[in-house]
């Protein structure tokens, strides 16, 4: 009996120790006039360092404000955490958003009342402001822009003695170029990755529908202009490439999810051309010793089918207890010249034309700027996002794969894509 008591005492002690250790840090929450702002974003290495520098600069100017960064490695982790926190009523003050800002509209604070006073929107590109405006309300401040692009392995192409591609081509020229590459490349290396069989494949499809003159989604009347026949044409385009060996067969292509450099056919040296968003270029370039370069999607010059997408957004949680201070900080991040210098183009190429004119800080950034010089004039306003973006990506991917593996015909695939769009819009 005595032993039992001693034992239980030991347990009680260690439990209280654990509790004690945990709650000690809790006491730093406001009670002494300091405002604490929680900033949730995703990123690694360099981004964390420069964000911290920006934080420290701001805190040195505003000693009564403390900014707590809550960093997650990738966007996936970030959103799982933010979602759970929001469901628990515990969301951070600043939430970094990507293209999925539309899905979060109901939990974000409209910033219109700050525009012109705490938030200086006049110096930001109107298109950037517009991209953060959803349902008539300004919900997010753009951190910069990014554009879809085709990326090619310059070193590989030079090694096999093929000419480098022109930055702008028509579809016919593009196909000829791919055939030319195929004749020069060794077996096992393909001219282009099968960019339809990738996890973010809704972007190439989105591009193609713009090129085709049938945008994916129009928010104004909640409808799509894509028909089953249009979707079929897209599938047949790639079926043609596949038949002629211009893109890898489905089982080879499926081995490269293209989520990141570790699952990229381009980096693995299996394809000469791939696709990405310009803000991914530095990450990809860092994973290979070959030199990468950018070119447009075919047909952009004639149809202006490319677009500038906001890279990321700073948004404010609707339930934030320190909305004013939070908006002030966002204004600092986006507009303050010193902050801009620190943050650079890490979260996207600056949305301000003057900042772009002052030049790039690295060869990769220079390539992006050069690309945007060419592709900018070949762009038009971004199409509205299909509702339930994630599900669209995932199911489109599945349908595309079924066609690629020959399970269903392009006609049936086209029909399925059409029905998918209707279902997601109605959801």
């Amino acid at each position, binding site marked *: 009996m005595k032993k039992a008591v001693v034992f239980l005492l030991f347990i009680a002690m260690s439990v209280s120790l654990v509790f004690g250790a945990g709650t000690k840090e809790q006491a730093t929450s406001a009670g002494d006039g300091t405002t604490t702002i929680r900033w949730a974003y995703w990123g690694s290495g360099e981004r964390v360092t420069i964000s911290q520098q920006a934080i420290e600069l701001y805190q040195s100017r505003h000693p009564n404000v403390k900014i707590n960064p809550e960093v997650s490695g990738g966007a*996936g982790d970030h*959103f*799982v955490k933010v*979602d*759970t926190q*929001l*469901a628990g009523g515990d969301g951070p003050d600043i939430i970094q958003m990507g293209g999925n800002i539309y*899905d*979060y509209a*109901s*939990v974000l604070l409209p910033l219109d009342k700050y525009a012109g006073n705490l938030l200086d929107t006049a110096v930001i590109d109107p298109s950037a402001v517009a991209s953060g405006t959803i349902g008539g309300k300004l919900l997010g401040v753009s951190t910069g822009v990014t554009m879809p692009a085709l990326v090619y392995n310059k070193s590989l192409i030079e090694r096999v003695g093929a000419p480098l591609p022109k930055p702008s081509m028509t579809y016919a020229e593009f196909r000829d170029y791919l055939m030319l590459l195929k004749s020069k490349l060794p077996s*096992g290396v393909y001219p282009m990755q099968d960019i339809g069989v990738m*996890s973010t494949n809704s972007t190439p499809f989105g591009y193609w529908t713009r090129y085709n003159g049938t945008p994916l989604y129009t928010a104004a009347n909640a409808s799509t202009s894509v028909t089953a026949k249009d979707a079929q044409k897209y599938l047949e385009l790639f079926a043609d490439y596949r038949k002629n060996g211009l893109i890898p067969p*489905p*089982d*080879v*292509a*499926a*081995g*490269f*999810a293209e*989520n990141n450099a*570790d*699952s990229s056919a381009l980096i693995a040296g299996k394809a000469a051309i791939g696709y990405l968003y310009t803000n991914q270029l530095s990450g990809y370039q860092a994973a290979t010793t070959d030199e990468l370069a950018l070119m447009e999607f075919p047909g952009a010059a004639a149809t202006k089918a490319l677009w500038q997408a906001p890279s990321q957004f700073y948004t404010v949680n609707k339930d934030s207890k320190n909305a004013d201070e939070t908006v002030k900080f966002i204004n600092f991040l986006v507009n303050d010249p010193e902050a801009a210098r620190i943050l650079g183009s890490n979260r996207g190429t600056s949305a301000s034309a003057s900042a772009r004119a002052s030049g790039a800080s690295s060869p990769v950034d220079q390539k992006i700027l050069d690309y945007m010089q060419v592709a900018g004039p070949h762009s038009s306003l971004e199409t509205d996002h299909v509702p*339930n973006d*994630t*599900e669209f990506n*995932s199911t489109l*991917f*599945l349908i595309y*794969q*079924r066609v690629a*593996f020959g*399970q269903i015909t392009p006609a049936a695939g086209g029909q399925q894509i059409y029905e998918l769009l209707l*279902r997601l819009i109605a959801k």
Partner: protein
Amino acid sequence: MTDLHRRKVWRDNLGSYAFLTPWLLGFLVLTLYPMFYSLYLSFTKFNIRTPPEWIGLRNYLVMFVGTDRLPKDERFLNSMVVTFKFVFISVPLKLVFALAVAMLMNKKLKLIPLYRTLYYIPTLLGGSVAIAVLWRRLFAGDGLINMILSNVFGAQNLPAWISNPKYALYTLILLAVWQFGSPMIIFLAGLQQIPREYYEASSVDGAGKIRQFFAITLPSLSPIIFFNFVMQMISAFQSFTQAFIVSGGSGGPLDSTMFYSLYLYIKGFGFSEMGYAAAMAWVLLVIIAGLTAISFRASGSLVSYGSGE
């Protein structure tokens, strides 16, 4: 029952419950509420950002038969098939390897700790990104395995295992079986507990190694074999990490590696259909509970506990 006896039984029960208290408290406070909340969620439509909206049995109907608004969820049924295949192939294989290697490791060879560590390494690497990268590298069309098969064995026309819908699942089964370290360690612990005298006595009686295995090892180890079987089955049904990282979160190619838990995660956190995910969770629970109950029933005749049970 006399008064004295009744009081003794009462005190006995109280004493026993004292031992159970930590677990009971933990269950009631930390587990019961989340479980019931998730059951509630399964009858709602919940996109995390707005409060849950009651829709009754709709989630369950969509899973199995479809409603007038939504067709039957083929991807759900596919994930069940994929998972069942995975469980019923990988679990027995894993257990066989675990037991075989545990018996090997039970010897008094000099470098045994080193060997045991070697065989545990695959499990240590667990669900790391490194494993995903490596497995893709090994089983790609031009990967190491194919290179060995074609150069050493002269095989032709080898498929790209990991990206071919017909074979991708088997690479994951192989990954699971390769990570047999945990059940192996448990078998090892179990083997250690078999009194040496049993073997010595039977040797004196002239029993050979094989006889000893079936007469002593297997029966003494049967509670542990049962444990490993049930636990491996339960965890195989919930398998998530390896499928997630090897397929890049897509369950591909062609949903051939779309494990049930992976689809649940995608539905819950990816498509923001937490209600549906909760319904999936409860369906899985019922399935696992049913199979476990059957296992317990069947074990009555197969498993022998120490004397007096």
